[in-house]
């Protein structure tokens, strides 16, 4: 077995001549699911940043799991630095000098930076002085400027990401897979990350950069490969291609856009949230600090914010899943403050939760059973204490039809659908029964472009018909495109308003991190 030390010597790339750092040929992976990889070809030159683009669900993640040894391909070959390899597990891939930084960090919060980096790789440099020296040496490369003895829980998102990169460098990686590294960062942090990547590229590291954010891809990548429906559709030079052309390669057709221009905002208040405060045990500041907002009929109110600043809690408080410690919530004049979730739903709130698997669906149950969830007291899915199964089935068929849910039938389990189709089902359900208010948390997260377009269209149509929408999204383009008003949430407070007609994602990003003064976006 190759020892990782060969790669750990320093930043200089191996003189492998014309050989590719990574070459995947004819990779096919049949998988119990909707998207598999078929006949994927990918060549990454040493010392470049190679972007892998594709919509959500196009098969990028599967492909990277194959390269990282987490999945075995059914067909095809993998070559690393010109040699054919077979990875049986990620440790084989690590030995070959491949490292992966996952989208969701895999760090132990209560351990220090040093401990997190060394954890599982104690055999390389021990856990003492040698390890510390090695980490100090590598930390500079990743731009990590925190003490190795600081607990990870004290670090911000950007620093955590650097710790993740440090982890793979420590294990000797020369080829680093970054899975949607910018998804968790605000624009300023993205720029800093790109600076770091450029510096490391100079030192001979090779990056495989997975993203569907095309501007970023064009900014950082030396070459780009586009993957669509599980197969590679072509490579391009990002300097010579426009974002639009790239996007069309990804989608294979015309692009949807979140733009909503004609204002349908009325002066009729639908949701009124007044001075809502939510405290959590053991926290020194309230999770929600005197939140007040109003959503009017025909209006989409967008909430921007870095995740974890109270958006989830706000939504759950409005839904009655959490109980506010103070304040009032009114819907169309009726006070909801003392009511439970079901009563609030019955009062006319539709709820698209941020995590459809955990909060939106009963995965092992049929689509029509899922139609009943949240509507178990109302027609057409129930009559009094009895379920109306025929009614539920009929209405599910309507949703499948209207929302273009791609399914062979309504008897299949929800788990068998792809993410986008699951989400269309959820949105369709929550828009049925004439809600007055729709709360949409990340309504298009993790769904393909086609489903995104359907969901956007439906939200727009409902808005035009007088629906009030509270939209929470990490996708700033979506937020700016769909919203009539944007409020920025930071540490449990609404700190700024923005006008979606004029604000840029960068400005929003500043406000989200608190870099800008309060309210100066107005």
């Amino acid at each position, binding site marked *: 077995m190759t020892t990782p030390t060969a790669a750990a010597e320093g930043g200089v790339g191996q003189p492998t001549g014309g050989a590719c750092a990574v070459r995947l040929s004819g990779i096919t992976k049949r998988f*119990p*699911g*909707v*998207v*598999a990889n078929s006949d994927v070809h*990918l*060549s*990454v030159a040493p010392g470049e940043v*190679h972007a892998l683009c594709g919509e959500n669900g196009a098969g990028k993640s599967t492909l990277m799991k194959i390269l990282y040894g987490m999945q075995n391909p059914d067909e095809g070959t993998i070559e690393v630095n010109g040699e054919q390899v077979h990875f049986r597990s990620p440790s084989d891939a690590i030995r070959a000098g491949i490292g992966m930084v996952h989208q969701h960090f895999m760090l132990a919060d209560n351990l220090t930076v040093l401990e997190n980096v060394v954890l599982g790789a104690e055999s390389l440099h021990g856990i003492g002085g040698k390890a510390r020296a090695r980490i100090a040496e590598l930390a500079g490369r990743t731009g990590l400027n925190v003490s190795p003895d600081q607990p990870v829980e004290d670090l911000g998102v950007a620093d955590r990401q650097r710790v993740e990169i440090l982890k793979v460098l420590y294990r000797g990686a020369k080829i680093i897979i970054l899975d949607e590294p910018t998804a968790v960062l605000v624009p300023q942090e993205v720029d800093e990350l790109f600076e770091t990547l450029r510096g490391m590229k100079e030192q001979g590291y090779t990056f495989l950069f997975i993203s569907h954010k095309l501007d970023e891809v064009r900014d950082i990548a*030396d*070459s*780009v*490969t*586009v993957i669509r*429906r599980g197969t590679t*559709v*072509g*490579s*391009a*030079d*990002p300097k*010579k*291609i426009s974002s639009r*052309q790239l996007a069309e*390669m990804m989608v*294979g057709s015309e692009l949807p856009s979140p733009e909503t221009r004609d204002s349908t905002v009325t002066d009729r208040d639908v949701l009124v949230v007044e001075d809502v405060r939510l405290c959590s045990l053991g926290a020194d500041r309230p999770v929600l600090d005197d939140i007040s907002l109003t959503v009017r009929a025909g209006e989409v109110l967008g909430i921007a914010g870095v995740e974890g600043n109270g958006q989830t809690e706000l939504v759950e408080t409005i*839904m009655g*899943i959490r109980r506010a410690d103070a304040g009032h919530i009114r819907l169309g004049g009726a006070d909801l403050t003392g009511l*439970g*979730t*079901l*009563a*609030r*739903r019955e009062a006319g709130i539709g709820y698209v*939760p941020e995590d459809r698997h*955990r*909060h*939106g*669906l*009963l*995965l*092992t*149950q049929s689509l029509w059973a899922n139609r*009943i*969830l*949240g509507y*178990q007291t109302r027609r057409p899915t*129930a009559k009094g*204490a*009895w*379920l109306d*199964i025929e009614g539920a089935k009929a209405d599910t068929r309507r949703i499948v039809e209207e929302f273009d849910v*791609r*399914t*062979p039938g309504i008897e*299949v*389990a929800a*788990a*068998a*659908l792809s993410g986008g189709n699951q989400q269309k089902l959820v949105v369709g359900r929550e828009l049925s029964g004439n809600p007055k208010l729709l709360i949409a948390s990340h309504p298009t997260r993790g769904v393909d472009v086609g489903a995104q377009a359907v969901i956007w269209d439906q939200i727009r149509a409902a808005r035009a018909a007088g629906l009030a929408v509270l939209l929470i999204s990490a996708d700033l383009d979506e937020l700016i495109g769909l919203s009539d008003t944007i409020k920025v949430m930071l540490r449990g407070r609404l700190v700024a308003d923005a006008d979606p007609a004029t604000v840029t994602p960068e400005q929003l990003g500043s406000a989200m991190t608190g870099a800008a003064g309060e309210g100066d976006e107005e």
Partner: protein
Amino acid sequence: MKLNLRSVVLPPVLAVAFAALLCGLALLLSGANPFTAFGAMVAEVGEGTAAVDIINGGATYYLIALAVAIGFQMKLFNIGVEGQYRIAAVTAMIVGGAITLPPGLHALVIMLVAIVAGALYAAIPALLKAYRGVSEVISTIMLNAIALGVVAFLLKPDVFGELRANSLTTGELPESAHVPGIPLGAAGTIFGLGLLSVVAGVGYWVLMNRTRFGFELRASGESATAATAGGVNAKRMIIAAMLISGAIAGLTALPELLGRDHTFTQNFPQGYGFSGIAIALLGRNHAGGIAFGALLWAFLDRSALALDNIGVPKEIVTIMQGAIVLSVVVAYEIVRRMQLAAEQRRVGQQLGTTNGNGADRQPAATSAGGGAE
């Protein structure tokens, strides 16, 4: 439907076959001939009152297993059915012996008392779980131990008990409280209240599959978070499920008590509750599956006698019961996973070939520049 049948019938059949294989091995190791043993077990069914005994035992098991299954539907492990049925039985018999009512009504009141007593005893863990987050597994196990003590206390001669034929009892029920059975001559008598199992089974199926309550119960069991977001009140569901479970458990002993014994004695069989847990697992919480499991259990119980007669240790039956439950749990899990994968594949295939969007594999739009090389 074909898929459904396979998934429902195949696992238990495989599991029983596998368990029989295991037990055959155990029999061989203990020096007996498995074929003789199995033959004796099956032949026993035709002997004397065996068939009726199996039906009567099955009816009792069915009730208690339904009680467990209701909890299981929402991942609530009511281990306390054992204590609940004993408390309910002894209370119902004491009350039944103390009151005088016309025939029919008398039995009905006893049943009501048993239902209420079982539900009340189950209310303790229910409230603890809903309002204090106490694991129902721990509290019900402890309450089982307490139930034993309470029953022994109630049976003391200076409390409600009566010493008859060397055993403490609740005293003989008056004639008006007896429930006649269905006499089959020499083959025995089927308990009249055995019909209760049929009613409970149908009621259980309707409740689970046709009512809002059943839907909320199953939703809570499948995903507590999704149920909450869908407006299901978790506390209410915990309390309701536990109360219903306790109420059904309370009925468990009545077919025997009102149909044959007419008194609750110290020696009333213990362990129905634990068999009920195993049977609910075996029947996968399905009304029909539990019926099958209950009858199988009663058959195995009965065949222990047959094994004894041919000199095979009857404990082999306990091994067999354990092996069946384990095999069933494993078999179902395997079949479930295979099915989900098959369904996903099927959905993928159908969509890959039938919808318009999958067919638009246009040649790679623009391959501007050969960047990668």
